[in-house]
């Protein structure tokens, strides 16, 4: 397998005949804008420093607060360098700059991961469907603005799969440049690093958008469908009587081919396809009969359960010890991506028969197969043949074994198990209880256990602690039978038209995007609770990836599944699952489309103006409660550059720095009034750009607050304040202390609280403020002679 397919393609065309050369021209010509009347904005295809001035504006208000995760730098052979508190490394670097460099490195990795994924997908789909295969992510339901992010950033609108290749050339180029900036002796300024972090996030959004557009279009995933089907999720939904193929990862072609092969072979009813991470979400978008096991943290438990007869891994978020774990249950592993070869022998060119035989007979632990079609055949046939032999052989112990095993726990004084646990779970105590026959303690650890297995590595007595927790939670796991709405893809233009006004004016109190991974401090239910809370309050709740799963794997007080209670439309009170990780740009895209469709701002290559619009007007907040990966970091930074705040959970403090506003510094909270050019105080709206909350309660209160925007109408602000005050009082048991900064006019005040709040305001010496037509860009001020405040 080589990456030169696209080049080869071009070559063939060019070589064969002139007519085809013309064909090529047209396709290049098209993406180059010949059919798009909108003129270029100021910054199509921005390079590293093009949007730097915009970034500096944001970063002046939201200053990085560095949380160094290590006191030293170890990135070149002059190191390690002690950078403690003011010391500089051998290259002159200080600790804050080093942190920002690591953030950039992480975001480069994240962006590269999505872009690499997109490239692979686009190449594969072009090979399969042709380069002229149209991009259609919802034209029939009126999605006219496809690719809002690509239009905004790259400045073109791709119409075919082939058009996507040049977009990818651009983003690959930018990732390379960004990565180069992290080299020893390159960028020397922390704020410039932060600006590059924003750039990485923006580039990443383009890459993700390309990936999801390609797969929606070519595979016919739900197209901007608010009523995408409800699909099954949870360990309990897998029919263990059938052979089971487990797919893990993000790049769906192998899963698609598995499903197709099953269909062609008439085995659709005979084999279960179940998945973990985004590949499973995308498999259900392709075929709603596929099932989702759960988020990233379900890997160990499901593999060890022995339910899977074959494991197919593609790329990203896959446990690197999957071969070792799978071997224990005698489950063969098929690796399918060049990016993750797992040391397996490349069988791509071997006949399927041979590979199947080797896997079934146990002559090989797995196989590396780069051809998705062959993967489909081998996986299905192997599962069919192996299932009767394996008999779902599992390594999760029964209660008796657990009690026995727990008896061997040495009750170590300094509890290596607990100290190895990311969530500091009280394992020793649970073991003690278990040794006495009571598994409740272990079972109580289930919810907050992220399934990392570190406790086992650390245990002095090599006890399989995670397996004990799973074994002790057997009943609960059997009851993991939930629904999740399959990823719907983009937001329709008509939905935007409907909610654009209410959002911008503040009457829909906000858009809460629950995204990212499953490194939750206290379990996935917290995400679902947040989703339920805001949906009930008629915010628009959007979600994707592992967070979308966690929302599904939950029952509210009334035992209801949130996807069944709340509709999937992009509207107040909806819970909108856009899809997998690469579907995230549909959320950013919705905000962009509000600016474009509702406010008629130009999109093409006009990043700064649109970001300014969103930052000042669209009350959107991202919450990545269990963000783990570099991808999550770059996704967050894509939001930052658009001026959308992101909250992470407490583990997010390990991302090395926060971007924090200071509501006590009045001077930070001025905007231009575009009508007058005056600088107007608008209060800390939104207060932070990136921020780790300690508890879900804090996250909810803050999220409500971060939805406020300078542009809110009094009615809108009133609604937002009401939610903020209500949540604050509920969780904090006191009134907020910053109302004087958030209330502009008396009309902002929630009617029922008016007297109470007015008293508070009076004490603070509150005086009213103008509600401006807000912008941070002096050039957007409607020029009036002698009035414009140039800065």
């Amino acid at each position: 397998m080589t990456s030169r397919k696209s080049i080869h393609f071009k070559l063939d065309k060019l070589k064969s005949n002139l007519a085809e050369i013309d064909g090529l021209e047209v396709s290049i010509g098209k993406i180059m804008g010949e059919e798009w009347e909108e003129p270029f904005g100021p910054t199509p295809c921005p390079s590293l420093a093009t949007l730097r001035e915009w970034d500096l504006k944001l970063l002046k208000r939201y200053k990085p607060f560095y949380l160094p995760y290590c006191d030293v730098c170890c990135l070149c052979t002059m190191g390690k360098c002690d950078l403690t508190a003011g010391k500089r490394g051998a290259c002159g670097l200080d600790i804050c700059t080093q942190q920002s460099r690591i953030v950039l490195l992480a975001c480069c990795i994240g962006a590269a991961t999505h872009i690499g994924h997109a490239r692979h997908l686009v190449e594969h789909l072009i090979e399969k469907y042709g380069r002229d295969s149209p991009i259609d992510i919802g034209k029939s339901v009126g999605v006219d603005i496809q690719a809002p992010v690509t239009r905004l950033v790259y400045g073109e609108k791709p119409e075919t799969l082939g058009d996507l290749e040049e977009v990818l050339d651009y983003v690959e180029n930018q990732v390379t440049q960004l990565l180069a900036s992290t080299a020893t002796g390159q960028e020397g300024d922390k704020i410039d690093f932060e600006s590059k972090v924003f750039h990485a996030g923006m580039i990443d959004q383009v890459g993700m958008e390309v990936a999801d557009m390609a797969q929606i279009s070519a595979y016919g995933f739900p197209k901007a469908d608010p009523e995408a089907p409800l699909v099954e999720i949870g360990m309990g939904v897998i029919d263990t009587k059938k052979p089971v193929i487990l797919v893990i990862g993000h790049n769906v072609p192998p899963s698609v081919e598995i499903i197709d092969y099953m269909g062609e072979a008439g085995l659709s009813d005979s084999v279960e396809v179940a998945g973990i991470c985004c590949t499973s979400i995308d498999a259900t978008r392709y075929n709603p009969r596929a099932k989702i096991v759960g988020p990233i943290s379900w890997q160990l438990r499901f593999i060890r359960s022995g339910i899977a007869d074959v494991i197919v891994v593609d790329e990203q978020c896959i446990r690197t010890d999957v071969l070792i774990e799978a071997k224990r249950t005698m489950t063969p592993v098929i690796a399918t991506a060049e990016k993750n070869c797992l040391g397996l022998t490349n069988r791509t060119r071997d006949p399927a028969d041979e590979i199947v035989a080797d896997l079934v007979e146990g002559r090989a632990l797995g196989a590396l197969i780069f051809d998705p079609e062959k993967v489909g055949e081998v996986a299905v046939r192997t599962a069919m043949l192996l299932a009767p032999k394996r008999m779902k052989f599992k390594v999760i112990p029964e209660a008796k074994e657990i009690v026995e095993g727990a008896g061997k726990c040495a009750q170590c004084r300094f509890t290596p198990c607990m100290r190895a646990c990311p969530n500091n779970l009280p394992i020793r105590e649970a073991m003690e209880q278990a040794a006495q026959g009571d598994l409740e303690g272990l079972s109580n650890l289930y919810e907050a256990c992220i399934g990392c297995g570190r406790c086992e590595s650390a245990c002095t007595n090599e006890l399989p602690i995670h397996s004990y927790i799973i074994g002790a939670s057997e009943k609960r796991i059997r009851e993991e039978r939930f629904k999740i709405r399959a990823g719907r893809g983009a937001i329709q233009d008509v939905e935007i038209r409907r909610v654009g006004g209410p959002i911008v004016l503040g009457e829909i109190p906000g858009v809460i995007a629950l995204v990212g991974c499953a490194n939750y401090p206290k379990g996935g239910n917290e995400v679902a609770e947040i989703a339920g809370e805001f949906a009930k309050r008629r915010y628009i709740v959007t979600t994707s990836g592992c967070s979308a799963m966690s929302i599904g794997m939950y029952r509210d007080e009334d035992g209801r599944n949130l996807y069944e209670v709340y509709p999937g439309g992009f509207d107040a009170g909806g819970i909108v699952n856009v899809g997998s990780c690469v579907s995230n740009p549909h959320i950013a895209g919705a905000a962009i489309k509000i600016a474009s469709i509702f406010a008629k701002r130009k999109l093409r290559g006009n990043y700064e103006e649109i970001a300014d619009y969103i930052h000042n007007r669209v009350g959107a907040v991202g919450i990545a409660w269990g963000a783990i990966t570099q991808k999550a970091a770059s996704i967050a930074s894509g939001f930052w550059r658009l001026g959308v705040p992101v909250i992470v959970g407490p583990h997010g403090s390990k991302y090395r720095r926060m971007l924090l506003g200071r509501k006590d510094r009045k001077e930070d909270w001025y905007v231009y009034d575009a009508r007058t050019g005056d600088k107007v105080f608008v209060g800390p709206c939104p207060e932070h750009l990136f921020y780790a909350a300690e508890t879900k309660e804090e996250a909810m209160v803050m999220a409500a607050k971060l939805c406020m925007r300078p542009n809110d109408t009094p009615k809108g602000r009133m609604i937002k304040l009401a939610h903020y005050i209500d949540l604050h009082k509920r969780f904090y048991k006191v009134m907020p202390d910053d109302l004087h900064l958030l209330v502009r006019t008396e009309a902002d005040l929630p009617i029922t609280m008016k007297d109470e709040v007015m008293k508070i305001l009076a004490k603070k010496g509150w005086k009213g403020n103008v509600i401006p037509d807000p912008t941070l860009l002096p050039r957007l001020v409607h020029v009036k002679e002698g009035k414009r405040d140039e800065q």
Partner: protein
Amino acid sequence: MSNEPWQMGEIAGPKKALIITKPSVVVGMVKKAKRALMVVGHEISKYDLGEESAIDYMIRIAETFKIPIVATAHTVSEFVKRSCYPIWWMSALDIANRLQDPEWEGLDGKGQYDLALFIGIPYYMEWTILSGLKHSAPNLKTISLDRYYQPHATWSFPNIKIDEWFTHMKEILGQIVEK
């Protein structure tokens, strides 16, 4: 192991917290400080030993030292329930961010602090916050009152058991009152 970082991978260095071997260290530090404050996170509620609740201790210590308490996250609700000692609230990151700004005017408008006592923020988060302060707030001393060794504080208890911890707190209280 008692003076190793509590969570296993959270290695730190070269500059690591001095170990609080006896509670009088804390008392001495606070008395020496010009302006001190106490930051209390939501895991304070994990410090309950039957009838004894750590929150009450914190209130009494703060009262006796006459230093303000900043409750992070929703922890303020616990204080509101219990006492009328004036409590500030702010997110953990907000208070930390202010503590490293030499120009911050303090909760009361009277200026920056030179000592901050931390307790009850999740270990790893307190770890990163204390690291941020170690690096960026050269004039601030920090004490971790938690029962886990926090290497980025200026002073920290070693890893100790909860009953030991209560004994220490009692001693601190005793000593403040004494002096």
